[in-house]
């Protein structure tokens, strides 16, 4: 029987920095991220993305949040990134923060090459946007499928990549013969084929590489990719908590004014009880997500357990909250005009992203010694 990791007694209350970041992002999204503009993405109008991301990345400095100050970044931790992700989830914001500023950036953090360090600086400045080329459904401990690298050219196809549509540089896993390395490929050298996606506010794409020029930026690719995926999963939990929080708050606000049968709908006890249960879930999701982020930020031994727990829990709560939001808005929640569907689609795609809840529980089964039935 393996030794269980024990939980760490970390401070789970937001720091002042987190509160500031949260307030700033929330205010910006209220002004610049209209639900109707996000909905338009489902009809192919992506006009909202570039200017919004430029502002967030450069003016607010979110692109460099996780980059050390030595490389021109803010030198903040995954805690702060999680706080930002929660607000972006709350706003259903269609920006590549998770894919570029968290996952791709984390993969590059220990880059052992000059090209890597240079790219990190460009990412920190918000001048470039990157994507890690793996299927968005990849869990942190899933098998990785590196592409073939021959004479500095990489070939192969990777399906369902998130953030590739927005990226100008792609981080590709390549097989060096002695393991997996991380190589950069200019987006222009690849064929990035957008896919009609369940969540068009984070549209996935198939990336086809046919002898594209690739520069190795990180020879120790596998640990870097695993760290990036783990960090992404922990931060995604906060995004999910944010999605869930919007759904609860928006539904509450609506039900406090919507009347039926001469009464405010939020006064019907069956509705009240469901909202009370949802409140308990949303609060719990927030706590689970912040604990996961805190352990990853501290490189705490409990981070794998904490992240698997948070992903298992927050994935389902975000979906449940979005489903309740649609249902409790009645017919209006089923309409294209109401933003509830943006959250439903985001929540459902997020549930699959970076590993399904079941995949995270399967991992947890190993981590906490609760194995499947003995064969």
């Amino acid at each position, binding site marked *: 029987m393996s030794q269980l990791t024990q939980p760490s007694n970390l401070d789970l209350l937001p720091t002042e920095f987190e509160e500031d970041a949260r307030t700033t992002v929330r205010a910006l999204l209220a002004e610049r991220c209209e639900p109707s503009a996000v909905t338009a993405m489902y009809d192919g109008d992506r006009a909202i993305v570039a200017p919004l991301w430029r502002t967030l990345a450069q003016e607010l400095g979110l692109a460099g949040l996780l980059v050390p100050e030595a490389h021109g970044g803010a030198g903040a931790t995954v805690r702060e990134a999680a706080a930002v992700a929660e607000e972006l989830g709350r706003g259903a914001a269609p920006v590549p923060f998770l894919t570029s500023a968290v996952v791709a950036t984390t993969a590059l953090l220990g880059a052992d090459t000059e090209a890597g360090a240079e790219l990190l600086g460009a990412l920190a400045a918000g001048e470039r946007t990157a994507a890690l080329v793996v299927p968005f459904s990849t869990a942190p401990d899933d098998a990785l499928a590196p592409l073939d690298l021959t004479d500095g050219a990489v070939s192969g196809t990777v399906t369902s990549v998130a953030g590739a549509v927005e990226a100008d540089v792609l981080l590709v896993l390549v097989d060096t013969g002695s393991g997996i390395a991380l190589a950069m490929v200019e987006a222009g050298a690849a064929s990035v084929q957008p896919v009609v996606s*369940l969540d068009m506010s984070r549209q996935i794409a198939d990336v086809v590489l046919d002898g594209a020029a690739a520069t190795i930026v990180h020879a120790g690719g596998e640990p870097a990719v695993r760290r990036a995926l783990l960090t992404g999963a922990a931060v995604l939990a906060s995004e999910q908590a944010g999605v869930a929080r919007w759904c609860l708050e928006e539904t509450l606000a609506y039900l406090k004014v919507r009347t039926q049968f001469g009464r405010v709908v939020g006064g019907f006890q069956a509705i009240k009880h469901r909202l009370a249960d949802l409140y308990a879930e949303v609060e719990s999701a927030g706590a689970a997500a912040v604990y996961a982020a805190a352990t990853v930020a501290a490189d705490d031994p409990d981070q794998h357990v904490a992240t698997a727990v948070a992903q298992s829990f927050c994935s389902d709560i975000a979906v449940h909250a979005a489903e309740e939001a649609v249902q409790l808005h009645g*017919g209006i929640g089923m*309409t294209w005009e109401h933003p509830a569907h943006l959250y439903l689609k985001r929540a459902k795609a997020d549930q699959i992203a970076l590993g399904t809840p079941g995949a995270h529980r399967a991992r947890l089964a190993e981590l906490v010694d609760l194995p499947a039935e003995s064969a």
Partner: protein
Amino acid sequence: MDLDHDVHAGPSADLEKRVAAFLDEHDPATMDRLDFLRAQFDAGLAWVWFPEGLGGLGLPQQLQGIVDEAMSRAGAPTNRPETNGIGLGMAAPTILAFGTDEQKQRFLRPLWTGEEIWCQLFSEPGAGSDLANVATRAVRDGDGWVVNGQKVWTSGAHNARLAILVARTDPDVPKHAGLTYFLCDMTDPGVEIRPLRQITGEAEFNEVFLTDVRIPDTQRLGAEGQGWKVANQTLNNERVSIGRAAVRETGVVGVLARTWRERPELRTSDLHDRVLRLWVDNEVFRVTGQRLRQKLAQGQPGPEGSAMKLTFARIAQEATGLELELLGEDGLRYEDGQGWTMVRPDRVDFAGRDAGYRYLRAKGNSIEGGTSEIMRNVVAERVLGLPGEHRVDKDRPWKETAR
């Protein structure tokens, strides 16, 4: 004690003979489709539980299967029931129950043959679950009525020739007492139809704007002020008509089961028991529906159908949600050709298109035709006899309680 079962041996043998005789005289292979259907109606083989002269023979509803099977074996045309669900499932029984002789003669035959498609003008933006709160006004004008208002969630409005309509004829009495039920001509120039896009990207429903629409008093169904009672007849039929599944593995659970079988590489242990539970739930739903239909074979549909509707929605939503998890990476893709393109489908198939569509569409199952919350109230109050909700608007004139 008597161990014998009643098997209706007499009527069913008679009916078999009658269908055979009809088919001897009407060869579906050579006859015009519409002529065949009209003849079938006139022979009382349209809906055998309707009265003679109105497409039926006054027989138990369950015997219809004998007709349908024989017709199907003979290659007879159908009346395409999937294109006229509201007409067949809701308008027809309501007209039968409340219509005048003239109304029954005028409307039932072209309704059944599919010559006239029907839609439903009930819901309004301010009267969703609270149907009795409709604000659409109908004002007496000579031998008819002038109607103004806005309706919503009207499926098939753009294909419909006629509509069942609930409007307020008296705002000075409490809200349930001031409603009247009409049969509305959708070709009236005052009827404007706008597609209402929903979360699947499609516009399966419409908004319908009524501006000075004229309805002759001969198209009032039931008495003035009796609209609430008539509408409830319609709604009970709607609730029971949902959830007819005579064969195993229907609907979205069937799709899920096939995916599970055909794509072994997707299977995970965490989903296995959930798939089996849904299969069990779906099968129990089938058996429960079967028993309920046997119970109701001769009677009117009652509030028990509301419980079936609740279960139907729950299963559909769980199964489609699970299917996306099962598909994993493929669940992130929404690309069966149509994607998010806005279209106006003529019919809806809950088990059709791709998994993402099914997931989103299933969300409507607990809203359309009475939300699950309303269904629970109906079951609690009308089946279980629990007290009604506290009402502040029940005895006051509608105009004082309206928003």
